[in-house]
């Protein structure tokens, strides 16, 4: 979260003991949804198009093991951090969850009961990685600005040289995204940075570039939202010309529309995210914590922190006044009795 002028004014207002004014601004800000940069970049993942080929996972590792990538380390330069099964053959990368070696993972859901829910598909995939929140909890809690939201693209990047390893981001992220390099003596936080390093090369997120079906498409969040709304308006069974790789639609593939749950996940969740999801299965079943609401999480802590300057002032004044009163009481008492020294302050 960049220190913007509004926040700074609020902070100073508190410092000036204008507690009342501070509270008013804070509560007014609490209602307005957070704004993202005009050209914020993101991903739309459509689970109904995903065939679970895991091309995104493999290419994510390859792209991010390059210099500048989120998995790049100087000491292991040139190596791609595959996670082969324990005691198994090194033939197939098989991570089971996000880790310090895996930024992006395809998970499968297989519990659909046709008898109970005839409209729901029996299985679905879901792609997990950083959702790049519009108002990110991890950025708001980071005490050293190691995690920052880029002002132009809205991508949440990580600077390992600032990070001192408090891991508050792991506690704060409602989606459980940041991972830590526990096995290292000099560890870093590992999370998807939306292939920020590839943007400079004129490329975009590897998971979208290498997605063969158009399940993951890259683009401006505004465009992705439009595309997602368009898809929800489609009828099951019709055919639609789905854009592939990028929302600009230079490449398209025609496909029969499958059943959609009428919800764009990430539109409002946690105040809105730049990674959006469509699916044919209820999102709770795809591993999203059902307790995540539309709440803008950083406001929970900001409502406390914004009052700290006023509290500092109030407590100092209260302490001083009490001391002056008790001192005077002491003096009066001493005057009534014997005149002794009253300086026993130490």
């Amino acid at each position: 979260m960049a220190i913007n002028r509004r926040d700074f004014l609020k902070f100073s207002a508190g410092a000036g003991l204008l507690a009342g004014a501070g509270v008013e601004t804070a509560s007014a800000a609490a209602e307005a949804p957070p704004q993202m940069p005009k050209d914020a970049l993101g991903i739309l993942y459509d689970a109904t198009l995903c065939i679970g080929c895991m091309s995104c996972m493999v290419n994510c590792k390859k792209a991010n093991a390059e210099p500048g990538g989120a998995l790049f380390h100087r000491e292991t330069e040139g190596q791609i951090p595959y996670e082969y099964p324990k005691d198994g053959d090194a033939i197939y990368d098989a991570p089971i969850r996000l880790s310090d070696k895996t930024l992006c993972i395809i998970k499968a859901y297989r519990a659909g009961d046709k008898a109970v829910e005839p409209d729901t598909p029996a299985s679905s995939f879901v792609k997990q990685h950083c959702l790049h929140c519009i108002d990110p909890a991890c950025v708001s809690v980071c005490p050293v600005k190691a995690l920052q939201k880029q002002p132009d693209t809205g991508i949440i990047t990580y600077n390992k040289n600032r990070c001192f390893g408090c891991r508050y981001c792991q506690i704060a992220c409602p989606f459980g995204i940041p991972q830590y390099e526990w096995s290292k003596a000099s560890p870093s936080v590992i999370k998807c940075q939306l292939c920020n390093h590839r943007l400079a090369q004129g490329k975009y997120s590897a998971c979208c570039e290498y997605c063969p079906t158009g399940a993951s498409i890259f683009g401006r969040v505004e465009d992705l939202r439009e595309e997602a709304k368009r898809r929800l308006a489609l009828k099951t069974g019709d055919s639609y010309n789905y854009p592939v790789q990028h929302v600009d639609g230079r490449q398209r593939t025609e496909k029969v529309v499958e059943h959609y749950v009428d919800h764009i996940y990430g539109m409002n969740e946690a105040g809105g995210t730049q990674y959006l999801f469509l699916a044919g299965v209820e999102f709770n079943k795809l591993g999203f914590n059902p307790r995540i609401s539309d709440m803008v999480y950083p406001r929970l802590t900001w409502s406390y922190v914004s009052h700290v300057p006023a509290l500092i002032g109030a407590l100092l004044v209260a302490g001083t006044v009490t001391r002056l009163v008790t001192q005077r009481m002491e003096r009066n008492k001493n005057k009534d009795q014997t005149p002794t020294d009253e300086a026993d302050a130490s």
Partner: protein
Amino acid sequence: MESNPNIKTWTPTTFVLLFFIVTGGATMLYRIIFGLGATTNLSDAYPWGFWLGLDVLGGVAMAAGGFIIACVVYIFNWKKYRPIVRPAILTAFLGYLMAVVAICLDIGHPFRIWHPMFMWQYHSVMWVVAMHVIFYTTTLALEFSPMLFERLGWEKARQMVGKVMVGAVIFGVMLSTLHQSSLGAVYLIAESKMSPLWWDTKLPFHFLVSAVAMGMAMVSLETMLSKKFLHHEVDSEIFYGLARGTLIVLSFYLLLKLYQLIMVAGVGLAFNGSLESNMYLVEMLIGVVIPVVLLAMKNFRRNINWIFSVNLLVITGVLLNRLNVGLFSMESYFASHGLSYSPTWMEFLVSLGIISLGIFLYKMSAKHLPLFSH
């Protein structure tokens, strides 16, 4: 001034303490060389574990006695508590030093501990907490320094500190109040992960009030122990007064927690037999309900042995609360991801080493500094 002849340096207790300090120190070194993964069972699901729950959250709550007694003596001018103000300040100072050691080991890069001082991010409660730790530890060092100056015979330095002492205490009370509540505020953002038995928008206030109760119990307990083992003679009225204070604050805390349970979390949640509900009940019974019931009766409140037991209960209860907030409140969230956490023996050794170091330094201060002279 001479060292206290009533306190012997080389007792069996000292040897035990030194043994734990050495083993804990060796483990700390191991942690710094080989990293957190080699030493602890922490994982991406449980990024904060035993060290943070017990040594940092618990240790800081235990140190609350320092600011309460300093406030009572220097700001409220209640002279009755003057004999225990120095031990209370020393405990707070040592408590914060111990917490700082634990924080240094717990963060991924111990040698970057200074980063928050120069890389400001005031939206973060963690940054606020870091600032409070820095300022309050410095303030406590100042409040503690007269004992050192008296021992060294630096009369001028002592007088200079004496002039700013009241200011330092007012500043310290402000910092401490905010630090205790900020530690609760850290968890406000984990709303979607924590059990509603603990998560509440008033969590900072809950932390502050429970820390005040624990601080008084801790001062009372430690004064009893110094009376028994370090021959510090104090009037029993001090214990009765502290017990009364504990009763008042703890009753208020009970009301707060009951309101939260009934109005926010829902009573059913505390009795559904899950791990969280059981931990909650244990915490509330040991740390709040039983102590309030016992202290409410005058015979118990004015009986040193009973006060001793109640102090132990309150301290255990609040420590449990901190462990619950830090670990068990997120149990069901992580259990649904198939992950669990239990500390390694090395985590225990480090904590034991840190606590032993605190007790050892307290004893050495009692012997060599004018701790009980007021």
